[in-house]
């Protein structure tokens, strides 16, 4: 699935959740499904700054796509991370940079999108995009070398 198709799938999934309780319970369930984070990467270097909860994001690049491993010590943040991963993981830097997280609003979780420093989503997304920009630069340097 392309990022856009994934976003549509997530939006449809959340349309089935009628109340805020259902939406959050779904988020919590999605978070519990996030792959186990490799302990070696649980370091300061891979910590996302500016989050209320602790968030770790480890990137790697195979020359074409970026692969993330992610984790948080807070349940809802972990759920949001899991959603972000479905959209942004295993994508090319160009795809990551071109994809906006408007679906967060569509699925009724807009309270997590503000720049309020207690909200992690903004910081996580910024970090994801920063890695993408860096890998895009690496790929270009590789191509021109």
């Amino acid at each position, binding site marked *: 699935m392309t990022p856009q198709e994934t976003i549509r799938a997530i939006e449809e999934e959340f349309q089935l959740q009628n109340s805020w309780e259902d939406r*959050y319970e779904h988020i919590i369930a999605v978070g519990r499904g996030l792959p186990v984070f490799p302990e070696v990467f649980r370091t300061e270097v891979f910590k996302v700054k500016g989050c*209320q909860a602790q968030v770790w994001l480890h990137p790697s690049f195979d020359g074409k796509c970026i692969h993330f491993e992610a984790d948080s*010590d807070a349940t809802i943040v972990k759920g949001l991370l899991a959603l972000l991963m479905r959209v942004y993981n295993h994508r090319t830097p160009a795809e990551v940079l071109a994809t906006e997280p408007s679906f967060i609003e569509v699925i009724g979780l807009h309270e997590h999108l503000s720049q309020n420093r207690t909200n992690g989503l903004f910081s996580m997304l910024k970090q994801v995009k920063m890695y993408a920009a860096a890998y895009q630069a690496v790929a270009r340097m590789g191509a021109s070398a």
Partner: protein
Amino acid sequence: MPLSVIETQTIAPFDVATVRAQFPLLRRTVYDNRPLVYLDSAATSQKPQCVIDAIVDYYTQHNSNVHRSAHALSTEATVMFEDGRRTVASFLNASRPEEIIFTRGTTEAINLIAQTWGHMHVRTGDVVLLTEMEHHANIVPWQMLCERVGASIRTIPVDERGVLSIDAINEIQNVKVLALTHVSNTLGTINDVKSLCSWARSRGIVTVVDGAQAISHIKADVQDIGCDFYAFSGHKLYGPTGIGVLYGRYALLDAMPPYQGGGSMISTVSFEQTTYNDVPVRFEAGTPNIEGVVALAAAIRWFSSFDLGALAEHEQMLLARTSDGLSTIDGLRVIGTAPHKIGIVSFVVEGVHAADIGALVDRQGVAIRVGHHCNMPLMQCYGLTSTARASFAMYTSEHDVDQLLMATNKAVRMLR
């Protein structure tokens, strides 16, 4: 004008419904029409209508620059501004209005002391004594000073309940200044600042009291406390943001160098030399926050019309109700159980992150704060990274507490 602006007010009996009716914001809803339950007053308090009116009145009737122009409006604005200074002086029981300096808030007040008094008096090898429960605003300005002059920071430890352990205090040598909070913003503990200031005075140590949390809950009488400096913010005392107060003993202020350079703070300026104005304007460069001072004075007059004893009783009742209710939640621990505390309840729940509790109670319309509360060293003492914190004000009702308890119960159920 005599310093009796406040004492002449009549004391109204305390009734939370009457108080709430004066706060328009408390009538609003959040999300899907949920009535707002505002339990984040330690971060900032809501404003009564009379404070909002004071700001509007200032801008619709009196706006003009102070201390400068020779016209009717300017005179009015200057009188209102300086009346504000007298109101604050009276409120804190300062010896004279000149002991009141207006700042942007507590943070700027402490920075001002560190950068003026501190820079003049703190030397290599000196010790700045803080407590483990200080807000970052009463740590970082002192660290910056210490780095510059080669001084060091020592701290008075906090015990398991959140009470200062002062047993070993006499072993700390070369203390130049003791800077401590009157009330902890995370634990709610009321510190015995009077005893500590007396201890400090007997050793020639200058004292700075951070009154940010105390000011809207307990009496802050600077002469009774016996401190050299006392700082607070208007916005936690039902006043506007961007205005704060630094009280300083006149003799100390008079000997202090200026803080920022600019208009007002000078006597004469030439390109060769500038001479500085007297206290307090020496520390108030530039056009001040005039409407902030006017509205803060309105907030103080309003606040002073209530009986502090009745307020404290109401708050203790809310505290007990909250602690009792929270204690029924499995794995919940209240952080800060000092015998003397204001209406602040920090808590953690085993196996549940405070951020998750915050998000889920928020969705139910209950506003609390989660995080380290600008208290990272204190969090380390307790081995925590964050807590959930509910904090009360005059308008907090039993219904608010019950909503918090329901919302927290539901949040914990959803997260387990």
